[in-house]
Structures are given as structure tokens and as C-alpha cells.
């Protein structure tokens, strides 16, 4: 079974190379080639999944990548277990859907070959990431994923905002990766191995003593937080929406941003060794979930709303992992991947129809975009956790996991977030699709079938995935490093609360935006301070910009000045000293040969005299001769 797994990432890579090598000539075919490649990858991934379901197990295969003097070897390897295979299927599936969708969405764009080769390259890196069996391989693909994200966010590089966003995304995630890298270094220092299984064993054996297990866990979490847009490294995700919408769906909603969650799950034994680290992860996740949900309530850019929603949901997953509920976290990751991809693709469909991102310019699009509206409604319901949609099951699993861990404060956060989530997603849906159509938007028409089909497939899954809960639970708990848990925690009231919260959120959105019983504008004016704070996203961006501009750049300019005028200045002063000294000694050169000759003989006399003075025995030698 494992023998052919490498083909899963290899096919998209091959497709990416093929398409980019063919260049502009393959403009027509590019999409078909990469889509076909990922289709076959999906088939194979499903095949692996089927095999793993029938015969569960954890397998790994490695090859030595390089061996260095000093007892160090690095390997490339794959780890095939339920966790990685689930991720494999998710990535392949979403990638396939998004690429099919892109065939319609990106049609006619000049850079279409570039687009599809990047997409395919991303798919390759993401697949490699989830398969990695050692930290070096993982880190490599981790960075490659970041690179593809950078390239795709900046796909329309001539737009300054897109270029800015791409740079920001790369740098902010890199900041987190720095922690990840240092974490790897620390692990290498103590354990001298990069293999995840061996690291896990070593940690379990307590070879990472004292505070080090916490430090390592937090350092690695820094990488996860960067990729998964957790506070305080979340600022890049909303800006990343400058990329094409399918990119946002694939990378910034379903797969890459979930890589942080995946990382925590993959290295769960390392985290599990430190209660402190888990606690910090849980609270940071909860904080991010709440923070992002509040911001999402007042944004007007359709994609930004969804981006904040993604952050919030990722916070949810982190919360689950922080509470040791590995299974719920991964389950939510799976369902979220489906419905969030759907939300984005539907949003893309809307944008495709009316060419704006601003929800205030939309409205009443429902009758015109029936499929889009319907599928987005499914996704919205799933996101809100309304039964029987998939989100309901996974979200409840998380809440119950939190409850089981005894963190009541986080439970409250979860429920409030659920309320806010329903509110903002229905605010979005109602504003866009319900109400009276804005005058000039009447010409909007439904997207072509090639875009509609992925929407419908995803909607079907968003609707049904939740019922797989028990099977999923059973399957994934066989993953390497999954904590041993007995029965799923169960509490009768929590789903009720969550449901009620969601309902309340829906009702609120209905009242404010559909019935307009309560004026949104009035609310905004009433709570102007809060509104402003939320609209400006808690001024976090501004703080960062201030720190970067006034801190780092000023410091760097200061250093440049120092280099130019102090370090180099010193060099120039030395040069000037010698030039002046030369000018001075030049005066001695009168240019008259006789004087030089005289100096020569004078020197001779001086030397002779001084030698005779200091070594009187020379006289004796002369005499004795």
C-alpha cells in the first residue's frame, strides 16, 4: 500500500513542471493537465484510504537524503497513518474541486498557465507536508507551502495590494516558522533525530527534561500559529484575500491554514508532554476564535468576512487540540475544509457575477444566482452548526471535548463564538442574496456549470459529512500519536446551548438585516467606539505597522547610517591619515639627488657609529684580524 503513496504528491508536481515548462503554449491545456493529475492523485489517495480502513496501521518509509560528518543524517520520508491519509484525501479532494472551479473562474486570465502550475505545485507541497515522517521533510514542505501561498496571493502582482499582501503573508508566517525552526534545532540538540516517531518516543520517555518540553512545544506551535493565522500572527490572512478567490478557497480556507492544526496533531505527543503548552494553545485558540468572530461581524468585504471566519474556526480547532480532544479537532478540520471551501467558492461565484467584493453593493442576488445562493446557504448552515449539517457534529464534538477537559471558560468562549459565527454568516448571506436587488445588479447571472458543479458536490458533502462522525472517530484514533480516549464525552445540554446560541445569532441577523427591525446603522452609531475598534480590527495591523516602520526600519536605517559613517568612516579616516602622512613626508623629498645621497651617507655614518657604540667588541675583532 505504502509503496505507491509517493505518487500522490508526485503527480501534481509532475503536472506543475510540465505546465510551466510548456509555458504559454499550454494555456488551453494547463488546467486540464493539472486537474487531471490531481484527479488521479485523489483516486490513489482514496485507494490508500480504503486500504487503511480495511487494515489499519502506521507505516513509514524513508530514504537518506544526506549524511553529514558529525553523526547527522537527514531523511526524506513518508508516514502513512489515518491522520495523514485523511489529510491526503481532503487536500486532493478540495484541490480537485477548486481546480475544476478555476477552469471557469480563471478562464481568459493571461497568467493561466502560471496559475495552474502554482496551484498544482501547492497541491504537491501540501501533500508532501501531510505525508512527512520527519521534521526536516515537514519543514521543507511547510516552507514550500508558504512559497506557493506567496506566489498565489501575489498572482495579480501588478496590483500593489496583492503584492503587499503576498509579502506580508510570507513574512508573518516566516516569523512563526522561525520558532518552528528553532524548535527543530532544540529537538536535534537533545534527541539527535528528526524522525517524528522517534521524537515522539523520546518525548514520551521523558528525554526532553524540565522546561524544555514546554519550550519546544511552544516553539513549534509558533510555526503552527503562523500558518493557521492564530493571534498574534493572524494579520496576514485577511490581506491574503487579495489573491484569486479559488486560491483563497484552497489555501487560505481549507488546506494550508489548517496545516498548523495538522502540525499540532502530527506532533501531538510532543505537545501532550507539556500541560502548560497545551493550555497556552487552548487559550490562544479560544482568544483567536472570539477575536476573529467579533471582527467578522462588521467587515464589509465578502472575502474578508470569510477570512476572519476561517481564523475563528481554526481557533476552535486549536482549542480542541489544546484540550486534548484530538479527534474533534481533526473532525472539525475535515468538515470545515469542505464547507469553508464551499463558502469561498460561492463567494467567488458572486464576485464573478458582479465584480465587486463589497457586500454593501450586493443584495437581492438570490433569484439571479440560485445555485450559488442555495449552496452557500448549505455552507452557512454548516458553519453555524445547525443540525443536521456537518458543522453541527464537529462543533459539538469540540465543545464537548472542552467540557470534558473541564475548561468552562473556554466553553463559554466557544458558545459565544458560535453565536457570533451564525450572526456574521447570516448577515453575509442575507445582505448578499436576500432583499431587493440593487438596480445595476440585475444583469448578474449564474456562473457556468463548470463552476456550479463543484459547488453542488461540496454542498452535498457539507450536508452529509457529519453523519460519518462515529466512523471518523474510530478510524482516526488509530493514528500515530493520537491520545488514547475511551468513549466520546457526552453531555446532553451542551448541544442544546450551542444550538440555541446559533439560533439566537440567526435571529439577530434576521432582525437586523432582513426585517430591519433594528437598524444596523443605528447600532453602529450607538456603539461607535466598539464599532470603530472592530472595523479597524483592534488596530493590530496599525500596531504592527508602527513597530515595523518606526522600530525595525528606523533601526535598520540607523544601522545603515552607522555602517556608512562610523564603520566605513573609520576606514576612510585611516585612509585620510595615510594620505596626510604622505603629504607630510613628501616635503622631505626635496628632489635634489645630492641631498638624497647625503642622507644615504649620513645614515651610513650613523649606523657605523651606533654599531660601534653598542658593540665595542667589534673593535677587538678588527684589531685581532
Amino acid at each position: 500500500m505504502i509503496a505507491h503513496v509517493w505518487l500522490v504528491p508526485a503527480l501534481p508536481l509532475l503536472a506543475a513542471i510540465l505546465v510551466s515548462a510548456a509555458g504559454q503554449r499550454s494555456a488551453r491545456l494547463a488546467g486540464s493537465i493539472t486537474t487531471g493529475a490531481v484527479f488521479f492523485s485523489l483516486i490513489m489517495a482514496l485507494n490508500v484510504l480504503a486500504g487503511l480502513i480495511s487494515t489499519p496501521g502506521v507505516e513509514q518509509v524513508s530514504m537518506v537524503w544526506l549524511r553529514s560528518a558529525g553523526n547527522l543524517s537527514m531523511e526524506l520520508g513518508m508516514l502513512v497513518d489515518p491522520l495523514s491519509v485523511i489529510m491526503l484525501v481532503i487536500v486532493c479532494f478540495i484541490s480537485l474541486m477548486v481546480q475544476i472551479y478555476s477552469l471557469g473562474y480563471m478562464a481568459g486570465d493571461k497568467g493561466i498557465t502560471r496559475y495552474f502550475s502554482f496551484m498544482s505545485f501547492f497541491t504537491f507541497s501540501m501533500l508532501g507536508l501531510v505525508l512527512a515522517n520527519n521534521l526536516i521533510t515537514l519543514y521543507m514542505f511547510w516552507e514550500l507551502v508558504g512559497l506557493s501561498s506567496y506566489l498565489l496571493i501575489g498572482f495579480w502582482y501588478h496590483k500593489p495590494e496583492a503584492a503587499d499582501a503576498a509579502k506580508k503573508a510570507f513574512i508573518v508566517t516566516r516569523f512563526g516558522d522561525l520558532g518552528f525552526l528553532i524548535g527543530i534545532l532544540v529537538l536535534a540538540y537533545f534527541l539527535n533525530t528528526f524522525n517524528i516517531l522517534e521524537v515522539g518516543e523520546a518525548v514520551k520517555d521523558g528525554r526532553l527534561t524540565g522546561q524544555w518540553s514546554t519550550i519546544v512545544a511552544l516553539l513549534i506551535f509558533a510555526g503552527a500559529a503562523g500558518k493557521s493565522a492564530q493571534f498574534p500572527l493572524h494579520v496576514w490572512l485577511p490581506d491574503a484575500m487579495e489573491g484569486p478567490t479559488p486560491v483563497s478557497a484552497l489555501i487560505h480556507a481549507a488546506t494550508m491554514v489548517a496545516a498548523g492544526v495538522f502540525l499540532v496533531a502530527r506532533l501531538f505527543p510532543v505537545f501532550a508532554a507539556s500541560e502548560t503548552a497545551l493550555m497556552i494553545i487552548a487559550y490562544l485558540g479560544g482568544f483567536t476564535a472570539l477575536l476573529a468572530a467579533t471582527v467578522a461581524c462588521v467587515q464589509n468585504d465578502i472575502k474578508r468576512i470569510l477570512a476572519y471566519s476561517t481564523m475563528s474556526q481554526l481557533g476552535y480547532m486549536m482549542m480542541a487540540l489544546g484540550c486534548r480532544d484530538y479527534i474533534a479537532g481533526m473532525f472539525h478540520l475535515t468538515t470545515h475544509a469542505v464547507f469553508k471551501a464551499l463558502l469561498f467558492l460561492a463567494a467567488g461565484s458572486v464576485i464573478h457575477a458582479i465584480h465587486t467584493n463589497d457586500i454593501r453593493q450586493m443584495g437581492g442576488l438570490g433569484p439571479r444566482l440560485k445555485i450559488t445562493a442555495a449552496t452557500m446557504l448549505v455552507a452557512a448552515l454548516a458553519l453555524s452548526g445547525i443540525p443536521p449539517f456537518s458543522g453541527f457534529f464537529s462543533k459539538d464534538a469540540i465543545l464537548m471535548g472542552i467540557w470534558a477537559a473541564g475548561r468552562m471558560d473556554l466553553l463559554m468562549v466557544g458558545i459565544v463564538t458560535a453565536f457570533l459565527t451564525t450572526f456574521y454568516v447570516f448577515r453575509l448571506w442575507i445582505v448578499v442574496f436576500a432583499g431587493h436587488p440593487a438596480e445595476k445588479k440585475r444583469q448578474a447571472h449564474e456562473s457556468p456549470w463548470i463552476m456550479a458543479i463543484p459547488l453542488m458536490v461540496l454542498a452535498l458533502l457539507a450536508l452529509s459529512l457529519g453523519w460519518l462522525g462515529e466512523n471518523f472517530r474510530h478510524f482516526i484514533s488509530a493514528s500515530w500519536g493520537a491520545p488514547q480516549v475511551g468513549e466520546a464525552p457526552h453531555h446532553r445540554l451542551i448541544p442544546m446551548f450551542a444550538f440555541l446560541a446559533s439560533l439566537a445569532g440567526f435571529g439577530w441577523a434576521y432582525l437586523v438585516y432582513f426585517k430591519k427591525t433594528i437598524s444596523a446603522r443605528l447600532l453602529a452609531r450607538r456603539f461607535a467606539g466598539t464599532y470603530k475598534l472592530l472595523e479597524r480590527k483592534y488596530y493590530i495591523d496599525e500596531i504592527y505597522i508602527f513597530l515595523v516602520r518606526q522600530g525595525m526600519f528606523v533601526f535598520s536605517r540607523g544601522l545603515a547610517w552607522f555602517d556608512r559613517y562610523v564603520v566605513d568612516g573609520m576606514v576612510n579616516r585611516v585612509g585620510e591619515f595615510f594620505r596626510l602622512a604622505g603629504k607630510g613626508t613628501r616635503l622631505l623629498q626635496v628632489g635634489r639627488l645630492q641631498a638624497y645621497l647625503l642622507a644615504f651617507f649620513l645614515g651610513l655614518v650613523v649606523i657605523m657609529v651606533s654599531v660601534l657604540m653598542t658593540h665595542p667588541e667589534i673593535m677587538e675583532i678588527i684589531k685581532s684580524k
Partner: protein
Amino acid sequence: MSISLTHYLVLSTVLFALGLYGVFTRRNAVALLLAVELIMLAVALNFTAGAQFWGKPGGLIFAIFIITIAAAEAAVGLALVIAIYRNQKDVDLDRLTILRW
């Protein structure tokens, strides 16, 4: 008491020192060259005396060479003086300071 090697050596040293003094102090190029010739003369005398007193004819050969070279030097030196004179209409060494840049 007879005339020994020492006498000749001292004499040639005196002549050498005189020539050196001339080289240091003369401001005319021709006069300077003449002083150089005096130095050569002293050296030739020195060699001859040494060769004769020690009975080594090699010294005489050297004296011959020195005289030859002195002549050659005089020829080139005076040619240079003439060339300089043609360029500068002057052979005053105090004003010949083109070495100084």
C-alpha cells in the same frame, strides 16, 4: 720607516672623502661629475696599492676595470649634462628638481 700599505689606504680615503664632499656640495653638474671622477680615482689607487702590497694581480685588473668604468661614466654623465643643458639652458642642480613631484 718606509711607505706602507696604510699610507696608501689613508691617502685614498682622504681623496674619497674629498670627492664625496664635492658630490654633496657642488651645484654645477659638470663639477659634480668631476668630483665623482675623483672618487673613482681614489678607488683605483686603493685597489692598485692593495694588489701590489699583497702581490695579487687581480686587484690590478679591477683597477683597470674601474678606470674604464670611470671613463664610461664620464662619457654618459657629460652627455646627460649636455642633454639637460639643451633642455633647460642650465645645469644648476638646485633648480633641477624634477624628481620632486
